[in-house]
């Protein structure tokens, strides 16, 4: 079963590299913001699979924390791009 997890982990790492191309060369700021959101999603999956490869169940806690951080970061970025400020009185 270790070989299956290793193969899936390498596939997801390759898709992260593919999305990095869109983050570097997207024309404008919205393409780059969307690509960063996608990379955050794939990193959560990669963390869980690496936890299964090394047989340490602690990586799932880190994945929960990073999923919450990525969500808040995307919402904050889109709020700033829409209004020009983050906290409106």
């Amino acid at each position, binding site marked *: 079963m270790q070989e299956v997890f290793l193969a899936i982990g390498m596939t997801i790492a390759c898709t992260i590299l593919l999305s990095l191309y*869109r983050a570097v060369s997207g024309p*404008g700021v919205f393409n780059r913001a*969307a690509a960063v*959101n*996608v990379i955050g999603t794939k990193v959560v999956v990669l963390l869980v699979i690496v936890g299964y490869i090394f047989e340490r169940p602690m990586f799932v806690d880190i994945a929960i924390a990073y999923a*919450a951080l990525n969500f808040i970061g995307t919402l904050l970025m*889109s709020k700033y*791009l*829409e209004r020009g400020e983050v906290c409106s009185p």
Partner: protein
Amino acid sequence: MFALIETVVDVLTTAFLIFGAFFMVTGAIGLLRFPDFYTRLHATGKCDTLGEVAILFGCMIYSAYHGMPFVVFKLLCIILFFFIANPTGTHAIMKAAYKTGVKPWRVGEERR
């Protein structure tokens, strides 16, 4: 007898993992191929959600058989959070682009 159940669990886990990885690769290819910002968000915001849920469900089955009950609960929490958070993030960034004036693409124009 237990060897049979272990083989069935292994086959089910591999099937879910390959199903999820196929949809994640499709999402990344869609991010590169589509001609406009709005259509690229279509490809990633949906295929990514389904692929991630499938991969985490396969890992849940694997660790439910090998006797780690707390890991099953934590993975279930991530899955429930993802069903609500990923579409909301996609909608938020698309609303910001629409309000700022990014024009949608029609058939027959060039790539942007």
